[in-house]
């Protein structure tokens, strides 16, 4: 055994250093664990300030001993390379480990082990954890808002039919493939609108009429985002083309329009649609609240979409325009056949981000009194029978929105990879 230098762990004394390292590391974790969960301070004999930092100091010493260069143990080398390259790195890594130890057990307890899920009254919630009974009881309200319970199959049926029609695009025979865009941009929106009008809204074919004020919950989030998506895309495309036009009137009116909507917050736009817009219509005309809201969101998001598409148009090399013009193409043929297909491919991630922002903006419609998921939560939490469960509600809604948005962003990332063309 060669000389032991505590400041420079080496391979010769690997067993000693590994032993010391593991010992200090465990000591650090143990100290922290006992401190936080059993309120026992094993280093209590030290002054308060030092004793507070002992876990970190122990951990750093432990990691220092383990930091043996070329130890010959593959796992250890990998560990050192990834989380333990210097004292500073070791301190950060150890703090994160402590943070995980500190936060994960209480979170798990709250979410799963101490949570209540059986029963259907407030009294069933006895544990210290989450009361998922609340979510269970209110589930229908969170999904469908004030839509009558007996009629909710209509909402489900509409969504299923729309999804089926959406999926049909995949099974188009090859010779109809060129009509696919047409199908998605024109045919599908019309079908969805008719379905929503006749099936969800009702009033004909013996279906009970349900006013839009009663729609709500997550299904309303979907309806609003779906229609806003469909309409804001073509409008945004027109605006983007308008902004790049050579004609001054077209150019500056598009520019003003875009900059105006991008400069104001959505909440004021919704306010406008709720209180100011009726003043601008002939007396006695009534436009449904939901339609006004969708129109407001469409105008707002179209401005953002336009800017994204403009980015794509600008990124195309001039040669594309020149080549198309030299083939004798006019403005519309040039754009529809040559420029837009390439530009849109370039801006898929940007468009996806805009759409993601749109979905995340839908909860704002509460300002005009439409209650989608977040709005319903607000209503449920003031119900005198179910006071004090706002945490569960917001966590539930957060998880749902997170799943929707995260999968959307992952999907757009895949699309980006799929359509990537090397230049």
């Amino acid at each position: 055994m060669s000389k032991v230098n505590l400041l420079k762990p080496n391979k010769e004394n690997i067993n000693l250093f590994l032993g010391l390292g593991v010992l200090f590391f465990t000591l650090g974790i143990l100290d922290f664990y006992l401190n936080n969960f059993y309120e026992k301070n094993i280093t209590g004999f030290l002054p308060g300030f030092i004793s507070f930092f002992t876990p970190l100091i122990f951990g750093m010493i432990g990691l220092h001993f383990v930091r043996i260069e070329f130890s010959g143990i593959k796992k250890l080398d990998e560990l050192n390379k990834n989380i333990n390259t210097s004292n500073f790195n070791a301190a950060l890594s150890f703090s994160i480990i402590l943070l995980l130890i500190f936060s994960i057990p209480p979170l798990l307890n709250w979410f799963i082990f101490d949570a209540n899920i059986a029963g259907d009254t407030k009294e069933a919630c006895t544990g210290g954890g989450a009361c998922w009974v609340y979510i269970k009881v209110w589930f229908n309200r969170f999904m469908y808002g004030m839509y009558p319970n007996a009629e909710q199959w209509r909402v489900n049926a509409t969504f299923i039919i729309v999804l089926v029609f959406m999926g049909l695009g995949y099974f188009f025979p090859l010779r109809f493939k060129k009509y696919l865009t047409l199908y998605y941009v024109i045919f599908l929106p019309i079908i969805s609108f008719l379905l929503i009008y006749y099936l969800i809204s009702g009033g004909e074919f013996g279906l009970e009429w349900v006013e839009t004020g009663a729609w709500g919950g997550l299904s309303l989030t979907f309806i609003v985002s779906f229609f806003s998506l469909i309409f804001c895309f073509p409008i945004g495309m027109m605006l983007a083309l308008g902004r790049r036009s050579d004609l001054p009137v077209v150019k500056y009116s598009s520019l003003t329009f875009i900059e105006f909507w991008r400069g104001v917050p959505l909440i004021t736009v919704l306010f406008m649609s709720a209180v100011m817009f009726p003043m601008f219509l002939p007396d006695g005309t009534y436009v449904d609240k939901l339609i006004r809201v969708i129109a407001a969101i469409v105008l707002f998001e179209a401005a953002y979409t336009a800017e994204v598409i403009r980015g794509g148009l600008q990124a195309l090399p001039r040669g594309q325009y020149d080549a198309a013009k030299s083939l004798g193409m006019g403005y519309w043929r040039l754009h529809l056949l040559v420029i837009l297909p390439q530009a849109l491919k370039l801006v898929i991630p940007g468009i996806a981000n805009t759409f993601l922002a749109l979905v995340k903006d839908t909860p704002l419609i509460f300002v005009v009194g439409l209650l989608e998921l977040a709005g319903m939560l607000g209503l449920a939490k003031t119900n005198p029978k179910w006071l004090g469960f706002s945490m569960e509600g917001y966590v539930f809604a957060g998880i749902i929105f997170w799943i929707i948005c995260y999968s959307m962003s992952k999907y757009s990332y895949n699309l980006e990879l799929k359509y990537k063309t090397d230049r």
Partner: protein
Amino acid sequence: MKLKKILPQFLTLLFIVLIFGFFTMNAQENMDTRGIEFGFGFLKQEASFDIQFSLIDYDGSKSYARAYLVGLLNTLLVSVIGIVLCTILGVVIGVARLSPNYLINKTASVYIEFFRNIPLLLQIFFWYFAALRALPMPEDASLLLGTSYMTIKGLYTPAPIWNNFDVFLISLIISLIIIFFFNRYAKRKQEEAGIQYPKFLISLGIFLIIPALTFIFGGVDLQWSFPELKQLAKTSFTYEGGVGIPPELIALTLALTLYTATFIAENVRAGIQGIGKGQKEAAASIGLTPGQVLKLVIMPQALRIIIPPTTNQYLNLTKNSSLAAAIAYPDLVLVFAGTAMMQTGRAIEIVAITMATYLTISLSISLFMNWYNKSIAIKEK
């Protein structure tokens, strides 16, 4: 040929004029039938409503214009705090995202994926209605850092009490001016004669010493007033002295900061990654230290990539601060487009003023950032 250019323009113009004409005509008619007259005279009337939290002197007897100012200042307050905090957090997370340390890297990316995929409004609600409601009542609150109390009614921290604050403020401004000229001088010297001064240290010194002198010679005096628990009634307690920061402000800043920081972090990461590896290697090979490489080579280039999208995030944060209305933080939208509009019923004027205000803020931030962006852009010869 000419027609091809004129016709579309004419149609656009016609469309705009028709729409606007239609709307104004209807508005005129509607206002006539309801007996409302268009005008901004109502701004001078007495507002007669109270605002919970105000930076300037305000009560119900003040005018609507004053209420508007209170709302605007509150909006600006939350935006400025949010911008400062989210920049700091965003840069830290963005750099952490590039760390070779697996744990740090993963934690940063989990943070980003988590907070950016949940609607901001939901986050505000969560902090305000769920997290901050779990805090203790004033009488049960424990000391925080020896001076502050975090309670369900907000955060109570010590407040500075100044004597001759204006002298202090003037000295601060003077020191900033001196620093500005010193830096210009140092830069010129470096370009002309190649002499390098320790710019940062000298600037810091000026910034600390001149204001400190005013404490000795200028009669400036600083004292702290600490919050103390006071019993109002049998079960009602409050704190006296110090500053009370309302929970609405805390929830809003917290949510805005955590949400916007994710986007800034991604911008920072993209900016640093956008610098070619060759730049770092070339800089290192001419003998610059790692610190100098970062400061003189990487950052100036990365900033050019980072700034434009970050400007957008600052604008978004400012606009998103209008979500304050959802938790009753008295910002511009709540005070003016909410309460004031309910009382006066002047929808058109008030929505127009509110929108114009946000437009002005947005345009001024983007103008400033464009100017800054231009000043650090590559100057090609």
